């Protein structure tokens, strides 16, 4: 018994050390963001941000193109979320509720498409959109993100819809609902949690994406937040304080949302291999 307790305690100790190592980079970002400049550029690091300052944040916010990047990111992300949610939901219902010829091919296609590297696709997409004069426009980025995000969203929503017993719908039809009515009253409300989860997922994906935005939006006035953040370092000598403040600000919405949907992302990628 005592040996067992000792073993558990040592596992706990290892666990705490591992936690500290894992979380340290994030801690260091936040700590740096709150430090005054003289505490950042020190050979012997200052472990806690005391005295703390908000100067780095105000510096980051007043940098050129910060606010336009935030605005661009929001436009792109919100449009992508709204449109992709609608399209993915329709497709998910199609796959989960109907047996049809080509269904399996469609499902396999959804999975395969997710594995195509964007670095490879961005070359023809750039040329394609350039032909339509859609480079340096948010519309080009929005269309590209839609295609990137739709497969995973459809796949995930399909799982939610398939989990709603058909019998519920049939009962509603027997009680006098039309099929459309049964759908709107039964399937739609029951899928709501799934719709929220996938919407948040789309939000995170679009918010974090870098290479497509980097290639398509070369004009700083149209760039998104990740491109703005990545460009921070290209000037000789980096202002680490404002950069970490900007990085912290960029992470906040994503982290907040991610905490809500993490479980669903894991399940979607591994499907039946893990119980949800």
């Amino acid at each position: 018994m005592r040996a067992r307790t000792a073993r558990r305690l040592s596992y706990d100790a290892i666990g705490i050390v591992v936690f500290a190592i894992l979380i340290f980079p994030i801690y260091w970002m936040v700590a740096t963001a709150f430090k005054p400049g003289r505490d950042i550029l020190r050979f012997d690091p200052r472990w806690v941000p005391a005295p703390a300052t908000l100067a780095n944040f105000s510096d980051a916010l007043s940098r050129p193109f910060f606010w336009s990047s935030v605005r661009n990111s929001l436009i792109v992300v919100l449009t992508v979320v709204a449109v992709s949610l609608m399209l993915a939901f329709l497709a998910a219902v199609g796959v989960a509720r109907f047996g049809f010829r080509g269904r399996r091919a469609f499902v396999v296609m959804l999975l395969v498409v997710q594995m195509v590297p964007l670095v490879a696709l961005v070359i023809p997409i750039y040329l394609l959109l350039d032909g339509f004069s859609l480079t340096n426009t948010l519309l080009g980025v929005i269309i590209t993100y839609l295609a990137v995000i739709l497969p995973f969203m459809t796949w995930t929503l399909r799982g939610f819809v398939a989990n709603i017993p058909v019998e519920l719908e049939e009962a509603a039809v027997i009680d006098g609902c039309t099929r459309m009515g049964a759908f709107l009253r039964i399937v739609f409300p029951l899928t709501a949690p799934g719709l929220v989860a996938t919407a948040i997922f789309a939000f995170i994906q679009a918010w974090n994406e870098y290479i497509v935005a980097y290639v398509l939006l070369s004009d700083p006035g149209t760039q998104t937040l990740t491109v703005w953040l990545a460009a921070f370092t290209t000037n000789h000598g980096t202002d680490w304080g404002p950069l970490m403040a900007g990085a912290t600000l960029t992470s906040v919405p994503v982290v907040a949302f991610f905490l809500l949907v993490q479980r669903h992302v894991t399940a979607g990628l591994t499907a039946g291999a893990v119980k949800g």
Partner: protein
Amino acid sequence: MCAAPMTTESAPAALGPRTGTLATRPARRRRLSVRAAPYLLIAPTVLVIAAVMAYPLGTLVSLSLQHYGLRELLAHQGTWVALENYRAIVADSLFWQVVGRSVLFTGAGVAISMVLGTLLALLMERVSGPVRLLLSGGLIFVWATPVVVAIDIWQWMFDYEFGVGNWLLSNAHVANLRHYNWFENPLQGFAIITALVVWGALPFLAITLYAGLAQVPRELVEAAECDGAGPWHIFWQVTAPIIRPLFLILLSLSTIWDFQVFNQVWIMLNSRPSSGYYLMGVYSYVESFRVDQFGSGAAIAVVMVLVLLVATFVYIRQMAQTGELDR
């Protein structure tokens, strides 16, 4: 097979597998509108994917068979050169270096993150409740960190002058790293990049594997313990075979993700990586957008996609075996 991937509280999966779909019920007459319905429903999604994924993929292949430089870019018209681009890259020693480097980088990244992910999952199984909560909370925070942010953080941690990583390693007497530039030597630079990639990949792997471990029946482990099997034996003889399908899925996903690494190299080296840092994605990008040789850039990208197809095939086959594709 198993319960739903997305079990929501409001949609109990416990009601058992669905026996059919509305459209295939014999009681229901198959009207034309019902038969057309699924196609109409998936049509918009198929259309978008076809236009922005499938069509460009086709363009990529045809681009790789053309000479497409700056002049062709302005004229929106390339010159057909058949397999010339492929012949050129195959004859180029830099290309083979890049392929070799990408394979090594992927192999190292996948191996390290899978081993650490498994160890972490096993650890999570053994720690007490509060520590487990702490660990999974930490993992989720790391997972949620945007890649670009993560790259900036690691760049700062290994800054040659004031990097806290350099300070820690120096003070632990691993090496004297004051004013040490990690990125002067690509091998050391890739050590940092690999650490960053592994750090970012660990949460998904560890959390998923932990969930997978929970599926191993307690009785089997106890029976093995009774028979005198050690922990090493139990892992390989009891646990591993049960989580094998999950392991294969994660292995193929990690391979796919690590082989296409671009951002970590590109941003880490301030958009100016030397050729010693080229991975497949970076090389293809530089050829296309820096050298303005879209044809040969596309050829490199096609090779990359073909390599990834192998891993994708393993992934799809494994997913099919879980029965998930037909639900």
